[in-house]
C-alpha cells in the first residue's frame, strides 16, 4: 500500500530530528511507533533511504523489540499485566477471560479494530495486582467478573461517539 505523502514527510522529519545523534535508529523507530502506532515495511524503506541503514537491518531491529509493531493495533489496547506479582494473583484468568469474550488471542486485534489484547510485563502497579492498563489508564485489582463490564464500558463509549 502506498504511503500517504504527509506520512512520508512526517517520517522524514523524524529522521532529520535525530540526524546528529550517534546511532539514532532506536530513537527514530520509537518516535515513529509513538506517532503512527506501527512501523510497516514501507515506512522502514523511507527510514532506510534517509539514514542509509539497510532495510534488512531496520527490519531486524523492528522485529526484535516488543514495543515496535509491524501492524496497526486496535483503538483500545487492553494491556493485562502478566508480571510476576500480578501472575501469582491470578492475572492469567483475566487475560483468558478477555480472550474468551472477544474471541481473539493475546497479541491479536478484533475485526472491528476496536480492541487489541496484550500480555504486558509489569506495569509497576504491583500493589494494585492484578492490574491492567487500557491506553495508559490503569485499572487496579481487576477480577474476572469485571471483564465484561470493562468491554461494555468501551463499546458504549464508542457507540456514543466519544
Amino acid at each position, binding site marked *: 500500500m502506498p504511503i500517504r505523502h504527509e506520512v512520508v514527510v512526517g517520517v522524514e522529519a523524524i529522521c532529520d530530528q535525530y540526524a546528529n545523534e550517534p*546511532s539514532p535508529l532506536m530513537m527514530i523507530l520509537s518516535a515513529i511507533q509513538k506517532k503512527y502506532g506501527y512501523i510497516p515495511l514501507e515506512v522502514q524503506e523511507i527510514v532506510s533511504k534517509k539514514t542509509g541503514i539497510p532495510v534488512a537491518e531496520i527490519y531486524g531491529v523492528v522485529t*526484535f*523489540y*516488543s514495543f515496535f509493531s509491524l501492524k496497526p493495533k486496535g483503538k483500545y489496547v487492553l494491556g493485562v499485566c502478566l508480571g510476576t*506479582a500480578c501472575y501469582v494473583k491470578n492475572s492469567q484468568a483475566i487475560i483468558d477471560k478477555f480472550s474468551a469474550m472477544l474471541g481473539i488471542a493475546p497479541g491479536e486485534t478484533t475485526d472491528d479494530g476496536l480492541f487489541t489484547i496484550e500480555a504486558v*510485563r*509489569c506495569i*509497576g502497579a504491583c500493589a494494585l495486582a492484578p492490574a491492567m492498563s487500557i491506553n495508559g489508564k*490503569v485499572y487496579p485489582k481487576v477480577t474476572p467478573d469485571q*471483564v465484561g463490564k470493562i468491554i461494555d464500558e468501551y463499546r458504549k463509549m464508542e457507540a456514543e461517539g466519544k
Partner: protein
Amino acid sequence: MERIDSVKKLDESIKTCTEQFEAKIKGTNGKRAVVVCGGTGCIANSSEDIQKALEEEIKAHGLENKVTVNHVGCFGFCSQGPFVKIFPEDTLYRAVKVSDVKQIVEDDLIGGNVCENLLYVDPVTHEKVVRQDDINFYKKQVRVALHGCSLINPDLLEESLGYDGFKALKKVLTEMTPQQVIDEILASGLRGRGGAGFPTGRKWQFAANVQADQKYIVCNGDEGDPGAFMDRSILEGNPFEVIEGMMIAGYAFGASKGYFYVRAEYPVAVERLQRAIEDMEQVGLLGDHILGTDFSFHAYLRLGAGAFVCGEETALLNSIEGKRGMPRPRPPFPAIKGLWGKPTCVNNVETLATVPYIIRVGAAEYAKMGTEKSKGTKVFALGGKINNVGLVEVPMGTTLRTLIFDIGGGIPGGKKFKAIQTGGPSGGCLTEKDLDTPIDYDSLVAKGSMMGSGGAIVMDEDNCMVDVAHFYMDFICNESCGKCSHCRIGTKRLFEMLTKVTNGTATTKTLDDMKYLATVIKNGALCALGQTAANPILSTMANFPEEYEAHVVDKKCPAHVCKKLMRYVIDPNLCKKCSLCARNCPVNCIHGVVGKEPYVIDQSKCIKCGSCLAGCRFHAIIKE
C-alpha cells in the same frame, strides 16, 4: 535558577536551598507543606487527581499563601497508597481518595485536627499511627539509595540541593583524585546492585586502567524483572542523586559522557530524569568545566523498547548503538571495549544512587552496615501474596523472616507462607527453612537462589510451584534473543517439557530430561539470561519435589492451579439455584433451572476462568 559555575556558587546554593528546604519541612517559613505521592503506583491510584483537588480546595479557602502542595517520589508502602503527608506535623495520611481532600483541608489544614480516619492502623495493636517513622513497615528500614525519595520534589533541583544533593560531587572535584574515589568505593565494599554483585570499584578500576580518547559510563535502568520496581522508584523519587552518582563514576575513571538506558515502560521516570538533566545543564552542573574545574560531563537518555535481555550489559550497549539487543561474547569486557568500541562501565541505577552517600559519609561508615562480604543496604520490591506490598530498603544481613513478616506484615487472608522468589526469572525460590538466612549476595546463592536486582515475590499455599516455574520459563522463552542455540532451542524444549508436567502428560523420565537439559543450557549459553534460565525450574524441583511428583505420578495439581489437572464443580447440596454462576460464565457452560434444579458445569466446555467461583455467594463452587 542562577548558574552554578564555581565551587563558591555551589556552596552558596547548597546553603540557601538547605535553609529553604528545612524551613519548609519544619514550617519555620510560616507555611505548611503538603506532599502527595507521585510514584507510578500511586499515580495509577489517582494521586494526581488528589493533588489537583488539594490545590483547588486550598485555593477555594484562600490558603494558597499559607500552604504549599507538591508531589514527591514513592513512599514505598504501596499497598497503603495514595499517601498525603503534612509538614511540619509530619502527619501521614494513607489510602487517600479525592473525596477525602475536603476533610483534609477543612479539618487538618484549617481546623488543626488530625483526620483520624485517614491514619494508618496497625493491624496487630489496632492503634492509629500518625507519623511515618512509627509505622512498623518503616522501623527496620534504612534509606540510602532511596535518600530523598518521598521527601523532595523530584522536579526541583533546588530541593535536591537542599537535601544533600551534589555535596559528594563537590567533595570529589575539590578534595579527591580520581584514584582516591575508586579506592573509596573499593573500601566501601559496594557491589553491583543489578544482580551479579560485581565489586563496583573494581569495575571502575578496570576502565580507569585503559587509555582511550573517549570513555563512557552507562546507567542500566532496564529493570526487566517482572514485579521489580526499585530502579524506577529511585529515578522517579530522586533522579538528581543517580546523575550525581554517574558523574562521580565518570570523574573516577575518566568518562566525560554518560548514557541512561531506561525502560520505555517507565514514562514517569523518563520524564523526571529528562527534566533533571535539562535543569542541570541549564545551571551548568552538567556540561563543560563543571564548577570551573577541568571536569566536563554530558548526560544523555536512551529508551528501551521492551526487551528483557537488554538488561544484560552487552545487549544494552548494542541497543544504545541502535542494533538488536543481543549480547556480545565477553571478553572483551565493556570496561575494555564497550559502547562504540570505547571503554565503558555499566552500572545499575541503585548502585549509582548509593555512590553519593558513600562519598558523603565515607567508606568506613558505609561499610559498618551489612555482612562481611555484602556491605550497605539493598532495596527490595516486595510483591505477591504479602500484606505490605511495596518498596523496602534494609541493611544487608537482614533475615528473610524480618523482611516478610516484620516489614512485609506476613501473608494476607491467614494463608500459609510457601516460598519467596528472589532474583526474578534468573533466581530461585526460598522456603520456610531458609527464612532465617541473612540476606546477602553469597548466602542467597548458597541457598540456590540469588540476590538479583531486588524483586521479591511472595507465594502462599494457593500458588502451584510448577506453574510458577512454567510462568518464568514462558517468560524466558519469549525473551531469549535467539543468538545462541543453547538458549534459543534449549529454553523452548524445557518449556515444552514443563508444559507436559502441568497438563499431566509427563513421566518421571521427563523430569530427568529436564534436569539434564538445564545443565546443558547453563554450561552452553552465551549470556547470563541463558545461563540462569533454568534456575526457577531447578530451584522449585529441589524445594518442592512432592509437587512435581503429584503432577507427574498422581496427575494432580495440589494447589488447584494447573488447568488441565483441576476442575470446577458445583456442590448440588449447597447450590441455591440462583443462576448467578450461569450468568457470569463467559462461555455459557453452566446449566440448571432457576429456583428448581441445581446448576451443573459442562466440563467439556469449561475454560476454567473461575468467574463462577468468584461470584458465588454460597460457596457452592469448589476446585478439585
